[in-house]
């Protein structure tokens, strides 16, 4: 059977059960950080792209040849002649030369005159042949790591870099001549 409420009890019940929408100051929400988050995400995207492009660069190290003064005291004690390997990039190929003279095509013997050790094949330089030739020289002089690189005045810089790549290491990744001395003089 329903109970009878007094006016005071009804007023009390109404007071405690009336629903009102919470105002902005009553809600639990704080500062709207979504726009800030958008900016941060965009910035991260931009920086990620920039950093990934940096990863595509590398450097090739080279030095200038240093000249030491001669003298009795500075001469090497052993009788072994230094190799003094020189690589010259010319219009029609690569010339490899050492203290014994210029290497003839095939890299077996030396030759005199205007000889090109690794002739150009068509429009492109024969880089694999240069690498093979450098490997052969390395097998004869395993302790040598220095090579002096030069080129004709009109040879483009990219061919010089390719030549340095070819003599730096062989196909298996073994070091050949990684100490590059850049000859500032031109032929």
């Amino acid at each position, binding site marked *: 059977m329903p109970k009878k409420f007094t006016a005071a009890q009804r007023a009390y019940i109404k007071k*405690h059960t009336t629903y009102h929408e919470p105002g902005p100051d009553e809600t639990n929400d704080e500062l709207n950080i979504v726009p800030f988050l958008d900016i*941060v995400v965009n910035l991260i995207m931009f920086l990620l792209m920039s950093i990934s492009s*940096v990863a595509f660069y*590398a450097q090739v190290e080279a030095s200038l040849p240093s000249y030491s003064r001669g003298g009795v005291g500075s001469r090497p004690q052993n009788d072994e002649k230094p190799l003094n390997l020189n690589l010259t990039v010319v219009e029609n190929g690569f010339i490899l030369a050492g203290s014994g003279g210029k290497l003839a095509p095939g890299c077996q013997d030396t030759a005199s005159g205007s000889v090109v050790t690794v002739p150009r094949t068509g429009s492109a330089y024969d880089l694999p042949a240069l690498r093979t030739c450098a490997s052969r020289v390395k097998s004869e002089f395993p302790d040598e790591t220095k090579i002096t690189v030069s080129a004709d*005045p009109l040879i*483009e810089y*990219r061919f010089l870099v390719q030549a340095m*790549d070819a003599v730096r290491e062989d196909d298996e990744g073994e070091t050949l001549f990684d100490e590059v001395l850049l000859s*500032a003089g031109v032929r």
Partner: protein
Amino acid sequence: MAEQEKATAADVRRIIRKKKKRMPHPEHHGLNIYPMMDMMTILLVFMVMQFASSSAASITQNEELRIPYSTSTVELSENTPVQISRNAILVDGEQVLELRNGVVDPSSKQGGGNGFLITPLFREMQRVAELKKLIAAQNTRRPFDGNVQIIADARTPFRTLAEVVYTLGQSEFKNMRFIVNKTRSLGGS
């Protein structure tokens, strides 16, 4: 008719509880993104620092500057950058002299056409060398090592490169670091 029983305080409380159950509850909608924002901020700070410390961030390739490709895997080191594009030589981002199709004007060289020393570049590099030596004298952890970073266009003739290298050598910069694009194949692009 029987008289209605009077409601007690317990009845009032029961009624209030019953009505409250039927009322809509304020919803806490939306994902809590604060931890995500913390992570993003940490990532951002890390990337900004990496970006600032990267010396290659300023390399912009365009028609005037196309860097050659190499199989070298040596990581970049921070050195004074000398940029040789088709139309100018820049030291640390500042233009030092103009080039014509990658060739130095004879009037800019000591000895004219046959000369090797590029006078404006020599003066600038001497200034840089003096500055670096001054820093080295104050800070032993940053010695003057004579390293220089060369960012050259792939089509630069060797004559120009030789002149720049000779001039750098005369200004006590003897160790060249040529910046290249990485490639896996020999002679590749």
